[in-house]
């Protein structure tokens, strides 16, 4: 009996559809759509030759492919401009420049001195958005890019919140990317200690009630003694300003989102009391000033050393910095977290409303592997739900997925101009600019609406027509220019849809091709229409 079971399992593994009527080409297209940002021309054939599940399994192992070509592309962006210290300095420079011009305007000297061309961080941040598009489009290690997109969204940071403009790039580079395929607990701890998260969700402002930072204490002492730091009026006004700005108690923002969004989920069984206790545990988790070597810094003066209880687990008094790590471990490995994050992964890889089966498989793998992300993904890909006809070619792409899959289909090698990143923004998903800590939604009804669809069609036509600067399509990779209408549509269907183009789409394209006589124009039209078609919106 047991032998029979293993035999059956072996058969299922050989044919991923597990008996369902999924062709080899459909399976290949499916894994390329879900574990990568869609096929490049010819890639479906490559995956068919290897076998879709075998290809997927190879992706889901520890060894990651080297990618010198991508490194070269990244280097073209001068990555040093993305370092937090450099960005913070330029933010500060731009601020001083603005202030100076304002003062000049106030004193009636406006216009005398032309605004200095300070190299503000705006262009750097646009370049950083473009880096995300370049990586997703061109990286050989597509799975890493898919997971970077997933975790960037799971641990969403809002670029436009003040200092975040200096901190966000390092968050992606140092916190998300290196840990995107590792253990969840390590990733969670890294985000909890990242300046970007500490700042975004205000933990840097959360201190024990009554805590006095050392610089303020020194000033107060010097005033009492009448000597020392600063003098007289100047010292008093500095003191007043500092007192005004200094936090005087806890801030619950991070504590709540840590449990609601990053770990347990909103129904994960925590209470308002737990939120407050978590905030107390994390008091003192702060950062160095960005212009002095940004990084995590623990402030003992700000930490609440009292006893706390979270989810029934007690944290005795005097826990210091270490109790925060204990808390992160507790949350990272809590059953509610396994379920919440597994379900989110299944919503991304399987279906908007994932069946319980694949979520259970993922949770079991999480338990067995202590939260190894690759193990969880393997379980999802091996779940029958992943291959079910209800999952295949049903999920609507997010704007980012749509744009990147289109760029891959056209073999665009995007350059450093941020045109494609801006296009994602126009489609409704400006990168790193979702204000809500919940990140962007995963559901089709959140992305599909009349205005957004028309924009996708416009972008499809513009991309195929080579009208986006810095994003030249390689249409020859899909079909030669002189193929003739029939062969043209066949080639597009084969490259994009593995033969799955609908009759209606095929007819609509053929009808318009009939009176287009210039072959180059006809090819661009056919490809643009295919990218804007309903089937290309799905994955």
């Amino acid at each position, binding site marked *: 009996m047991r032998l029979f079971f293993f035999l059956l399992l072996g058969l299922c593994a050989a044919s991923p559809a597990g008996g369902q009527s999924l062709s080899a080409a459909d399976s290949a297209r499916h894994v390329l759509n879900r574990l990568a940002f869609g096929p490049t021309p010819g890639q479906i054939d490559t995956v068919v030759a290897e076998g879709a599940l075998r290809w997927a399994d190879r992706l889901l192992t520890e060894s990651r492919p080297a990618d010198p070509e991508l490194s070269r592309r990244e280097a073209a962006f001068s990555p040093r401009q993305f370092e937090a210290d450099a960005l913070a300095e330029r933010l500060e420079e731009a601020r001083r420049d603005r202030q100076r011009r304002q003062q000049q305007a106030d004193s009636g000297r406006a216009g005398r001195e032309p605004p200095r061309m300070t190299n503000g961080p705006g262009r750097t941040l646009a370049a950083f958005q473009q880096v995300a598009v370049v990586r997703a489009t061109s990286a050989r290690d597509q799975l890493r890019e898919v997971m970077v997109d997933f975790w960037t969204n799971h641990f969403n940071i809002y670029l436009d919140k003040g200092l975040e403009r200096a901190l966000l790039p390092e968050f992606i580079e140092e916190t998300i990317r290196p840990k995107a395929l590792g253990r969840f607990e390590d990733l969670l701890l890294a985000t909890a200690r990242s300046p970007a998260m500490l700042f975004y969700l205000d933990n840097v402002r*959360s201190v024990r009630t009554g805590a006095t930072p050392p610089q303020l204490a020194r000033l107060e002492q010097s005033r009492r003694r009448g000597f020392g730091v600063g003098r007289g009026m100047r010292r008093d006004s500095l003191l007043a300003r500092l007192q005004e700005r200094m936090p005087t*108690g806890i801030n619950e923002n991070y504590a709540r989102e840590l449990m609601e969004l990053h770990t347990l989920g909103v129904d994960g069984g925590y209470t308002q009391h737990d*939120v407050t206790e978590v905030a107390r545990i994390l008091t003192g988790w702060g950062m160095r000033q960005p212009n002095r070597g940004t990084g995590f810094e623990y402030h003992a003066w700000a930490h609440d050393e009292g006893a706390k209880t979270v989810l029934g687990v007690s944290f005795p008094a005097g826990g210091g910095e270490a109790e925060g790590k204990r808390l992160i471990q507790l949350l990272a490995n809590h059953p509610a977290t396994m379920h919440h994050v597994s379900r989110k992964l299944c919503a991304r890889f399987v279906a908007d409303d994932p069946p319980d089966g694949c979520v259970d498989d993922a949770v079991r793998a999480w338990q067995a592997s202590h939260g190894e992300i690759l193990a969880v993904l393997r379980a999802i890909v091996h779940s029958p739900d992943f291959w079910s006809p209800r999952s295949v070619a049903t999920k609507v792409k997010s704007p980012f997925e749509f744009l990147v899959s289109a760029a891959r289909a056209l073999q665009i090698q995007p350059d450093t101009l941020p045109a494609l990143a801006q296009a994602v923004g*126009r489609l409704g998903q400006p990168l790193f600019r979702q204000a809500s800590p919940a990140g962007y939604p995963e559901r089709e009804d959140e992305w599909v*609406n009349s*205005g957004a669809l*028309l924009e996708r069609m416009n972008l499809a*036509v513009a991309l195929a027509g080579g009208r986006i600067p810095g994003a030249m399509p390689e249409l020859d990779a899909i079909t030669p220019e002189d193929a003739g209408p029939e062969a043209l549509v066949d080639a597009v269907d084969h490259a994009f849809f593995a033969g799955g183009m609908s009759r209606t789409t095929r007819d609509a394209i053929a*009808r318009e091709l009939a009176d287009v006589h210039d072959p180059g124009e006809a090819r661009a039209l056919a490809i643009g*229409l295919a990218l804007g078609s309903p089937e290309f919106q799905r994955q």
Partner: protein
Amino acid sequence: MSVSRRVFVRAGSLALVSLGLDPLFLARAAYAAPRKGGSARGPVLVCLFQRGAVDGLSMVVPHGEAAYYRERPRIAIPRDQVIDLDGHFGLHPALAPLRPWWDNRSLAAIHAIGSPDSTRSHFDAQDYMESGTPGVKATPDGWLNRYCSHRAEHEATPFRAVAFGPELPRILAGSAPSLAIDDLQAFGIRARQPAARDRLTRAFEAMYQGAGTGLLAGSASEGFEAARMLQGLDPGQYQPAGGAEYPRGRFGRSLSQIAQLIKSDLGVEIAFADVSGWDTHVAQGSAEGALGARLGELGQGLAAFATDLGERMRDVVVLTMSEFGRTVRENGSAGTDHGHGTAMLLLGGPVRGGQVLGRWPGLDESSRFEGRDLAVTTDFRVLFGEVLTRHLGLLDLSAVFPGFGPEPESHLGAIGGA
């Protein structure tokens, strides 16, 4: 300043009353009359969602409460800077542009309003306020969409329910068609030559029509129809009336385009826009500062909208909403954390303005929700329901707010004759 000329909104209604005609009755009669294409005029509801949870206590300030000043030493709005409304409440000074509409009684505030659900999660609370079913997550559609599908007799126009922004909000999700417009000026298939545009439109329209009845097909067909109707409208050249000046930025642009759609008689009944930036955990400021800047944009936008629409404001109600309020006590960062009850604003001809509605629970610790937040004394569905029935003429609320049937006497008296 054109404000004095705008007093007609209320004065006009009064004139009708003096003739013995209830302006609401007139509005209803006009609504019930069959409408022809191109002259679709009826009541309009504009909903503005303050995402992030606005601090209702500093938007509509209970300056008569000692507890307000005691709990907020750094961020309370000083009594002498509040725009006093009735001796107890006052507007944040950044809302000064709205003063004329309070004075002519077309602006009202509702205080201590919110959800019966106690969640302090932005996402859950927004979800509940948009689905209209607090505590129930499974509700698939939004309450404005349920209103539209229930009142199917409305003239079929893709512009009946329009949301401004790149996404269709939850509140309008559902079976009734509704439109999401990011920017009127760029809406539709674009091409340099009209012939090329027509070719692309024809091809895409055929593909999506053939794609069955799903969300993709439905949304695309609404989009194509709307784009056709918008041809000839030139949003880039739009000149607001009455010297109205919309604030710069997305919110101002959304409001001015809503005004343009209403004035173009395309049949807008429901319009929706987001106005974000209210999650003031840190340094929210007092009379000036982060919150003041956001309220300044809100006040200037609403004032411009009412000025621009002029006479048309007689048929229009603007309703602001926010998922919950913020803590009574300021937090350790001179900001406020997630709370419970908040305040909402109602602006328009049909509004019984010049009053702060709702039962005020007080701010003493014993009267607060869970000892920390402003209590909710008015379920948001009471207000939303009153707007739907008294302004839009809905008869049966149970289809829109299932399981919730406020008696007519529980109405706040926010909408109706003077």
